[in-house]
């Protein structure tokens, strides 16, 4: 009897490991393919049948992409929009997150629910009226207009995430600082803020990635000053295949790298702790 349950357990464990590895491969293999494609020279990309292992590693395709018209400009535009989005949403959102974390006040729950429910509203519906408005304001086709829309999209998340970050920083520490002669503002800047900094940085990186990846609004709101995904999207059908592969790789890489840096916070951000 004991022997039987033991062997059943063992089979269960082995199956669990197999399944876990299979799912990991399902996620990693497509990333591997696009990486191989991006580092293959053009004639290998066009060849048939393709080898599933990298043959010749070359920068030809990536350089072809970088040197293509507008690509560097739009890469730079993407960085600018993402940085603007990150700064604006932190400056506006973090105080609200702090308020949700520290105060009990009438209307708090209502505010939380409104913030949460904004997720039910698709980004598609914001882009078109805002495009019309920005045209009237003379902001159309300017990077700031894309950033403003990305902030509208990112702000609710920033508020909720920064609120959970500040909840993680003990209120007693701030109170202790006021006992030792700091005023309210000093207690915040000297005690709470430094402790919250890593979490706030993680939230900022998350916002950066959100903006970096966004296609629809960026495509609607710009004509000349396109971000990289917007540029890729409008040109995609007319682009040679090596250009698409290199472009896909370029959009992918920063996102995956950033994710690696916030992997610890990613889960504390959503209240998950893995032991």
């Amino acid at each position, binding site marked *: 009897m004991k022997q039987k349950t033991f062997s059943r357990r063992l089979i269960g464990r082995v199956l669990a490991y197999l399944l876990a590895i299979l*799912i990991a491969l399902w996620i990693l293999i497509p*990333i591997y393919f696009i990486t191989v494609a991006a580092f293959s020279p053009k004639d290998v990309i066009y060849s048939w049948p393709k080898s599933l292992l990298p043959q010749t590693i070359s920068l030809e395709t990536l350089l072809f992409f970088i040197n293509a018209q507008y690509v560097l400009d739009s890469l730079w535009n993407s960085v600018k929009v993402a940085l603007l989005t990150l700064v604006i949403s932190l400056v506006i959102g973090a105080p*609200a997150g702090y308020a949700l974390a520290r105060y009990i006040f009438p209307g708090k729950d209502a505010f939380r629910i409104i913030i949460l429910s904004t997720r039910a509203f*698709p980004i598609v519906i*914001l882009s078109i009226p805002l495009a019309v408005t920005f045209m009237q304001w003379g902001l159309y086709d300017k990077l700031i207009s894309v950033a403003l829309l990305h902030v509208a999209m990112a702000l609710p998340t920033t508020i909720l995430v920064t609120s959970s970050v500040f909840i993680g920083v003990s209120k007693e520490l701030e109170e202790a600082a006021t006992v030792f002669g700091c005023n309210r503002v000093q207690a915040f800047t000297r005690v709470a803020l430094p402790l919250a900094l890593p979490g706030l940085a993680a939230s900022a990186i998350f916002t950066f990635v959100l903006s970096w990846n966004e296609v629809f609004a960026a495509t609607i709101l710009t004509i000349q000053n396109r971000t990289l995904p917007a540029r890729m999207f409008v040109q995609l059908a007319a682009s040679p295949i090596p250009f698409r592969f290199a472009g896909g790789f370029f*959009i992918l890489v920063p996102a995956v790298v950033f994710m690696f840096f916030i992997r610890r916070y990613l*889960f504390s951000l959503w209240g*998950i702790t893995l032991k």
Partner: protein
Amino acid sequence: MNLKRFNWEPYLLLLPSILYLALFFAWPMVQSFGLAFRTDDGQLTLAHMQRMFNDVGFTKALRNTVMLIIAIVPLQFILALIMALLMMERLRGSNMLVYIYSIPLAISDLAAGIIWFSIFTERGYLNSFLYSLGVIDKPFLFLNYQTKWPLVAIVLAEVWRATSIVFVVLVAGLQSIPRDYVEAAEVFGAGWFARVWRVILPLLRPSIQTALILRTILAVQVFAVVSAIAGRGMTVLANEAYLWYREYRNPHLAATYAMFILTISLITAFIYLRALRTKEEMIL
């Protein structure tokens, strides 16, 4: 400490966010109504709506979007549940697994589309693989829009990219289930399936609800991944909104499509809320 004095501090801290969301979130929504239901000189009209419903693109886009949702959401849910349950098994290296499983969170729909295009394209990795197995002797044209294959490719790309968010929500939910419940069930002789079906899933209901709402809403807006894989061969609702704005230069029709997407999103959110009511909400 004076409890009676009204504390303005939290409201001052919230003010910037409220103003911002009013200006760049609520106001555009209102304007969207205006664009969808009014003519250029401000008359109320249903003409835009009629034009959308009679448009050839509309039927196709709606059908494709609905088919994608029906195919994608259940697959994602089952896969994410398996992934989340694996995390409960406390495997060695599960931190590494969590990182790998959450990588797609950071991948844009456009990049995912391009990646799966590289797999399904005529001289792509799938054809190369099938050739090396000897299944085919010349490339098979998967992305021919007269077949169902582009749809399959899009479903796989979306399941690949967006299962992570469901996974994260479900793991968060699983963490909040006390281990005692699961262990108690085990002591009373419940097998693995019984534990999952009778203990874990009922307790997980609020997270399941959140995950399904989130995913369906995102699936209604599916956009770049479709164009990246199927090109012009296939259209979805968000793509029609884009085309009406950019190519046909008609913001009214584009806004009408956007309103339609919003309506579907809200209806699905409502259905899930009703179908998966938790105990506290039952009272309401």
